[in-house]
């Protein structure tokens, strides 16, 4: 009964989405207030039905209702409750339901937090979100229904892929979807502006907080995925340039460009058409990511079990969304004329450079990801593009990006003078150079050009940002939240790039064969293998090894890497033993049983790895602070806001 309610609620939500997509939009164009005012109630009712649908599916999982095919395929009675719940979004159909729920939720949020937005604009925004909702809901109802029944119902379900039975992976998709779908809000605002023919500073002010928060979720979701891959899957790797990882990174690049471009549109009325284009591409890349993951065209660990029919549906949807928004853009571009000019030497140029570099980064990743697909489709050959391509491309692009990042905060809008900047900043550069060269010489045995480069970029940005905050002339506690947000986020970038540089250059790994009692030395740490014993868990059996790590004479930690078996029909899982630390991670994974008690093991020493994710957390905090800035909330304090705008970002 419950699955039927869920199914019916989904259908209802789709119908409401359809009405939501048409009526307010027509009302806005014909000037009918009644129709315009239906937007908010429709949006909230839509959300209510989506929630009912999702709760029904979750209930089916919790109560082990195996008459629903999706539940039977992804869950069984022996799985712990928390994983039965996260199994709801563990495979294709359920994850789409989550996507659609999140979409309705964002729309409902916009229907609540919209102070100062004229009803006509709001109606258009909510309508566009409704239309997107129709697309996803019909995709589900026609090709990927989570509520399909199975008669006779099996007594026991299959299992959730053991890889997914893990807390990190339970929250990674929801966070990422919050980001992907959040970009649809920016997209809807852009489309609404184009339809209305008006794009001004007020529009940018409405868009910015939503875009910032979507960006925060995307950043956090990507970092979570990297962290999860490290401890669960990647044999110590934290980023593989896997097509699905790239699918999340590309919208992130564009979203980062978008939040900076919005700043220019809000402050200076420039970059209008460009901002709209970025909003379109950010969301389009989210949809492209969805297509790549679910259509079966990619060879990847992330690829869902697939069906060409689904791939085709998403492809059509993607083409429809991108095609119609770009057509709208072409038609309305004359109305998006930017006022305001700026000199070559100005903050606008710095932000333009930021945008250009980020777009080029995105394009190189896009090319590397799609190249295998294109060559295969054209029958030129079956190519794959390896990580070295991406790593080679990112470094030369990152250098000018970080240089501008440090400089940009100090630059004046509209026109700045080179001499003024040099006079103010030269000593910051000297300090950064000293940090980049002296610190490694003191602490790192083998200095390396790349290390120096990475540390230089990091210290330049960190010092320049601190210099900027202090140089505002007011106590930091009296400065607007937007300034705090910018400071923390940019310092987060510096922390991440430090982690990336150091872990990439000084990462030590080795595959070894050890007998019980034997030890191996890596980077000064001694890894002593103490043998393997049998293991029993709630829904798995396996083997557990013991490895004692010492540095010199001191024992640092004991690690218990495991190999688990989750029952017939599932693959063996390797649980690594990790000793985490702020400045280094030690990592041991069991390889294979080589007989006679000896095993192959993989050991790692990873310096500063956690800084990569720490930086991402700082960036997320920065984004939240920036979105919470007063000027987005209080309309009455217009004068104070204007004053703050002059000194803040």
């Amino acid at each position, binding site marked *: 009964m419950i699955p039927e309610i869920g199914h019916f609620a989904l259908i209802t939500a789709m119908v409401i989405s359809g009405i939501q997509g048409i009526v307010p939009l027509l009302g806005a164009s014909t000037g009918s207030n009644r129709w315009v005012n239906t937007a908010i109630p429709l949006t909230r009712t839509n959300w209510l039905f989506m929630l009912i649908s999702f709760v029904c599916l979750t209930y089916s999982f919790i109560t082990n209702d195996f008459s629903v095919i999706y539940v039977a395929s992804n869950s069984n009675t022996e799985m712990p409750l928390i994983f039965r719940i996260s199994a709801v979004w563990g495979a294709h159909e359920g994850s789409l339901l989550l996507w659609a729920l999140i979409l309705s939720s964002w729309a409902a949020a916009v229907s609540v937090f919209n102070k100062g937005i004229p009803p006509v604009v709001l109606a258009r925004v909510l309508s566009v979100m409704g239309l997107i909702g129709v697309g996803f809901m019909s995709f589900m109802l026609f090709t990927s229904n989570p509520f399909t029944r199975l008669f006779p119902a099996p007594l026991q379900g299959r299992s959730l*892929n053991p890889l997914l039975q893990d807390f990190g992976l339970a929250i990674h998709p929801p966070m990422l979807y919050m980001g992907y779908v959040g970009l649809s809000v920016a997209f809807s605002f852009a489309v609404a502006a184009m339809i209305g023919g008006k794009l001004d500073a007020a529009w940018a002010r409405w868009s910015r907080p939503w875009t910032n928060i979507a960006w925060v979720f995307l950043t956090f979701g990507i970092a979570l995925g990297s962290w999860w891959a490290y401890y669960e899957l990647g044999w110590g790797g934290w980023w593989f340039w896997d097509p699905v990882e790239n699918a999340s990174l590309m919208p992130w690049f564009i979203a980062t460009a978008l939040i900076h471009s919005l700043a220019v549109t809000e402050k200076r009325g420039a970059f209008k058409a460009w901002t709209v284009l970025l909003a379109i591409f950010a969301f389009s890349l989210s949809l492209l990511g969805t297509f790549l993951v679910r259509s*079966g065209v990619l060879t990847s660990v992330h690829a869902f079990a697939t069906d060409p029919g689904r791939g085709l549906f998403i492809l059509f949807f993607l083409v429809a969304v991108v095609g119609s928004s770009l057509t709208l853009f072409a038609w309305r571009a004359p109305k998006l004329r930017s006022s305001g000019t700026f000199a070559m030497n100005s903050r606008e140029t710095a932000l333009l450079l930021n945008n250009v570099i980020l777009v080029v980064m995105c394009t190189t990743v896009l090319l590397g990801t799609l190249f295998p697909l294109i060559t295969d489709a054209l029958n030129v050959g079956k190519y*794959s593009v390896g990580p070295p*391509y991406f790593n080679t491309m990112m470094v030369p692009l990152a250098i000018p990006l970080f240089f501008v990042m440090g400089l940009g905060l100090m630059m004046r809008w509209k026109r700045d003078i080179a001499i003024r900047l040099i006079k103010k900043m030269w000593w910051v550069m000297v300090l950064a150079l000293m940090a980049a060269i002296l610190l490694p010489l003191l602490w790192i045995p083998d200095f390396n050009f790349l290390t120096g480069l990475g540390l230089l970029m990091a210290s330049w940005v960190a010092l320049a940002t601190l210099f900027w905050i202090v140089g505002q002339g007011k106590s930091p506690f009296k400065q607007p939240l937007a300034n705090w947000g910018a400071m923390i986020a940019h310092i987060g970038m510096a922390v991440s790039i430090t982690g990336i540089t150091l872990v990439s250059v000084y990462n030590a790994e080795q595959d070894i064969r050890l007998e019980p009692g034997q030890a191996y030395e890596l980077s000064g740490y001694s890894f002593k293998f103490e043998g393997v014993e049998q293991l029993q868990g709630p829904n798995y059996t396996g083997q557990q090894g013991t490895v004692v790590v010492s540095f010199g004479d001191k024992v640092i930690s004991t690690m218990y890497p495991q190999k688990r078996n989750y029952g017939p*029909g599932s*693959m*063996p899982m390797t649980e690594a033993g990790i000793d985490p630390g702020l400045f280094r991670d030690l990592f041991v994974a069991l390889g294979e049983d080589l007989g006679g008690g000896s095993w192959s093991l993989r050991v790692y020493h990873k310096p500063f790895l956690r800084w990569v994710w720490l930086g991402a957390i700082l960036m997320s905090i920065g984004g939240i602070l920036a979105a919470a800035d007063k000027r987005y909330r209080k309309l009455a304090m217009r004068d104070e806001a204007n004053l703050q705008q002059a000194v803040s970002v």
Partner: protein
Amino acid sequence: MTPARKRRLYMILLLVGGVGIAAALIFQALQENMNLYYEPVRVVKGEAPIDHNFRMGGMVVEDSIQRDEGSLTVRFGVTDYQETVTVNYTGILPDLFREGQGIITLGRLDTEGNFIAEEVLAKHDENYMPPEVAASLEAAKAAGLETEK
């Protein structure tokens, strides 16, 4: 030329120059890092490059796994049911690596026609078969060869 036009010209030149550099870098990086896929039958025919990494995939031949004592080197055969290539790999094999399963490996040929693998990838769940391996199995089936063992 007015100052505004001059500025626009510089911007455009800068953009074109930047795009040119980016394109050159991309082509360079792609050239060195593209890995073409070859089936064992084509490798045996001599179509695969000698001095360059490439990917090869197929099924692991039953009873062909040999381990070196005291080291992590392992030798096994990879076949597409038309030809078989011997693969040498030093390191830990992935969890799902088993005889009779589909794998993809990355590496290069040595002078004796053995494949020295840098990386061995096995499929990640029972239902997944890498598209390339599936395609070559289809081709073998079409040629009337037996693909089930």
